């Protein structure tokens, strides 16, 4: 796979030794890596099709070091790519040949847990799951749960506005972050929010979340923690057709029920998952739905019955209700292992991430079946059915360059289809480099220009993570020009008072 990245600046590369020395003065000891073997683990993130060795890797330990590194890079016009745990599936942390890779993994402390205010203050390198681990002894948890939660960092979650199974009911990262401390490329510290809600002033917290490392480097995060639901139970529902399953999803929501999670898998994904974890999934169905209901015991009990009835009305062929915590975990085991399971039946797979309006699901699945023939590749589908977030997994063999090209073309075709039916290019993985050149499918030039101007407000020199998100890099000077249309007042056709 290839994508054009900003060309390396020869004058920066020529100064590599001097830059490394200067950075070593800021971050002493093991904090600066320049040898190829040491840098190798950082050349790619979760999207391994793209690889690039950085110029220098820096692992700061203190906020002050982050400030000084960024300020030095700003003064010397050196590009910087921030990186958390490197689990991005869109190439968000893909290094630049003339760039400093700023790795935040040493920021791994939980700074404060405040149960009375239902908040935790953590450093950005703390893993998503570690937040829950730090609060679960008191019956609390952190709700957003991306599949990579054991490894992915909260700083990365903020950069990507990560989602997960629970988002339908509990929101994405952006709805669960209360505050941030970040450092701008100029080295200035900005603190946003805290344990209180809704500061007046522009919503920079909202802009930062999902900004993919282009606006600032997060050095501290305050998140909302929730009391774990009293109980959670799951239903495993098998359907003869995708249409039946899709309609069942719509009917559950239509009945006023918002499940804690609602996941769907198609026959190929069911087969792969069952072969891998033996969760007892039915193999004679076209679609499988896992619906988890959580909350007070009384409520869950009642809703299980309601959902069961809705499933029957939609021709569910198989209905199982978890009778124990162990069985509930078992229902989920196959879904949680779906990606590696598919990895066992294909040398490689390409994971997509579009979102569509729920009602378009049958149409989109039908079109995907047709595309399998067109591109001569198979696709397995797992998705967050409740919010229409699809994860088609395109199976291919990377050693066959023709297959690789077809997989990429197939992926693009799926995302264009998502936009066509009223959806979007990415639901939770981010644009990064992977979908950068598809942004024009969803946004016109004026739309993109506004987003780039946000970037200019934070980073006018465009040194932070350039080459991601935006298909073209416009200079901020060019973006700030006013195109004045000499207007004519008075508007004869606008009513006035």
């Amino acid at each position, binding site marked *: 796979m290839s994508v054009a990245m900003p060309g390396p600046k020869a004058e920066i590369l020529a100064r590599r030794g001097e830059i490394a020395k200067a950075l070593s003065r800021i971050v002493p000891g093991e904090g600066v890596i320049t040898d190829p073997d040491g840098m190798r683990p950082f050349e790619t993130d979760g999207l391994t099709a793209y690889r690039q060795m950085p110029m220098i890797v820096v692992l700061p330990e203190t906020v002050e070091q982050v400030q000084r590194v960024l300020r030095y890079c700003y003064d010397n016009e050196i590009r910087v790519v921030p990186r958390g745990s490197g689990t991005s599936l869109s190439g968000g942390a893909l290094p630049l040949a003339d760039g400093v890779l700023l790795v935040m993994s040493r920021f791994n402390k939980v700074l404060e847990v405040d149960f009375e205010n239902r908040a935790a203050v953590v450093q950005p390198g703390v893993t998503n799951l570690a937040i829950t681990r730090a609060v679960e002894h008191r019956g609390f948890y952190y709700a957003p749960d991306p599949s990579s939660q054991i490894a992915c960092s909260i700083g990365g979650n903020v950069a990507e506005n990560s989602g997960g199974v629970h988002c339908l009911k509990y929101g994405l990262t952006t709805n669960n972050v209360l505050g941030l401390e970040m450092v701008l490329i100029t080295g200035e510290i900005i603190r946003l929010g805290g344990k209180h809600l809704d500061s007046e002033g522009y*919503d920079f917290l909202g802009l930062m979340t999902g900004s993919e490392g282009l606006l600032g480097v997060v050095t501290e995060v305050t998140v909302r923690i929730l009391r774990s639901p009293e109980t959670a139970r799951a239903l495993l529902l098998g359907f003869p057709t995708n249409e039946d399953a899709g309609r069942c999803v719509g009917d559950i929501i239509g009945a006023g029920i918002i499940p804690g999670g609602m996941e769907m898998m198609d026959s190929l994904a069911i087969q792969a998952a069952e072969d891998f974890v033996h969760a007892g999934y039915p193999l004679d169905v076209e679609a499988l739905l896992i619906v988890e209901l959580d909350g007070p015991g009384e409520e869950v009990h009642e809703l299980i019955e309601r959902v069961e009835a809705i499933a029957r009305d939609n021709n569910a062929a198989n209905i199982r209700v978890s009778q124990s915590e162990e069985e509930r975990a078992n229902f989920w085991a196959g879904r949680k292992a779906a990606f590696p399971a598919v990895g066992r039946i294909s040398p490689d797979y390409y994971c997509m991430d579009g979102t569509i309006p729920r009602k378009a699901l049958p149409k989109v699945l039908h079109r995907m079946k047709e595309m399998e023939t067109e591109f001569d590749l198979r696709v397995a589908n797992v998705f967050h059915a409740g919010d229409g977030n699809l994860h088609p997994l395109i199976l291919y063999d990377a050693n066959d360059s023709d297959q690789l090209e077809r997989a990429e073309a197939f992926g693009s075709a799926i995302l264009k289809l998502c936009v066509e039916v009223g959806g979007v290019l990415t639901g939770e993985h981010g644009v990064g480099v992977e979908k950068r050149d598809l942004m024009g499918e969803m946004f016109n030039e004026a739309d993109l220009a506004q987003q780039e101007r946000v970037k200019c407000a934070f980073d006018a020199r465009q040194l932070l993570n350039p080459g991601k998100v935006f298909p073209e890099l416009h200079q901020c000077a060019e973006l700030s020009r006013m195109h004045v249309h000499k207007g004519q007042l008075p508007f004869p056709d606008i009513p006035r008072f």
Partner: protein
Amino acid sequence: MAETLRPDNDQSVLDVVRWAAAEQVPLEILGHGSKRGIGRPVQAEYTLNLAALSGVTLYEPDELVFSAKAGTPLAEIEKLLADANQELAFEPMDYGPIFGLEPGTGTLGGVLAANLAGPRRIKAGAARDHILGLSAVSGRGEAFKAGGRVVKNVTGYDLSKGLAGSWGTLAVVTDLTFKVLPRPERIATVLVLGLSDDMACAAMAEAMGSSHEVSGAAHLPKGMARSCGLSVESSVTALRLEGFPSSVSYRSEALNGMMRDRGAVETLDVPQSENFWRAIRDCLPFGGRSGPLWRVSVAPRAGAALMARLVNEPLSYFFDWAGGRVWIEVASGAEDAAEGTIRRAIRAVGGGHATLIRGSAALRTGISPFEPQPAPLAALSRRLKENFDPQGILNPGRMGS
């Protein structure tokens, strides 16, 4: 007297803003004007009134989504949703009564511009958490769109959130798409009587930290409950439960048990509950009066500590958001409406912010209605404003500190 322009279509809005940008003519952006008294008074030769840009353009109950023009009355949308047993889960407050206006005014554009929320903020978020997408015209006179119509969307920056709470100073929003949620089938309120502020904040923290899914937590000091329709003299701590009927009864029972050791406990049923939370939502204890009114946001547990520091000031107050939102009405004679005292007290209890919601034009010009920002953040805000509205034609000065 400013001249008012009332466009009724997107193209006319674009024409007006383009002209204003070209001629550097400041515009005051309005819907119904129900929140016009918030922020610095805007000096503008022209008013751009969006009330005629009205109408719901899409509503799909099964998809939990609707779109409407910015000037659509919120009351119209609330009715449409209620007819399908749905609602805006963030419970947007109505600022009208604070300013002595009839309840029920306000537009959808204003909901986002002021980032409205109600008591359910602590569970369901604010307008910012429910906006999915929008169309707008920047201060440069460029029409653009942001976001989409689906909940899970990380395609580009979340500009819709960036415009939440921007008070019309970055762009003129013409269309908005929000997510909606099913209306709870049932509501009940557990009241604990006679608690001190500190005990109340502790009780609310315990309730919010329980698994009973409390969707509203407010505390009214002694003598204030009557203004919310309760015939009680003592202080009242109120905890709201919503959801399916059996679940509400079950949780209400559990919460009653949990609170019994703290004070006398009563339960409010449906109509009384609804009226009570509407009163809290719209700040009715201080409605239709004229004293300067501050809206404070601190960490929930810091609410009582904040008021303990202000015990010698001539003021009245009550708490929402489990103690984190404090409405403070200052006696009319207080110098600068006690701005310095209140802001210092907030810093002393761990930080937060205060916004002057009601005050004379002179007061709002003389002090800073919004929380002053540290220099780097103020500079960043300025740069964002310059990028979207380089001529400063949209609501000039309104958010000025």
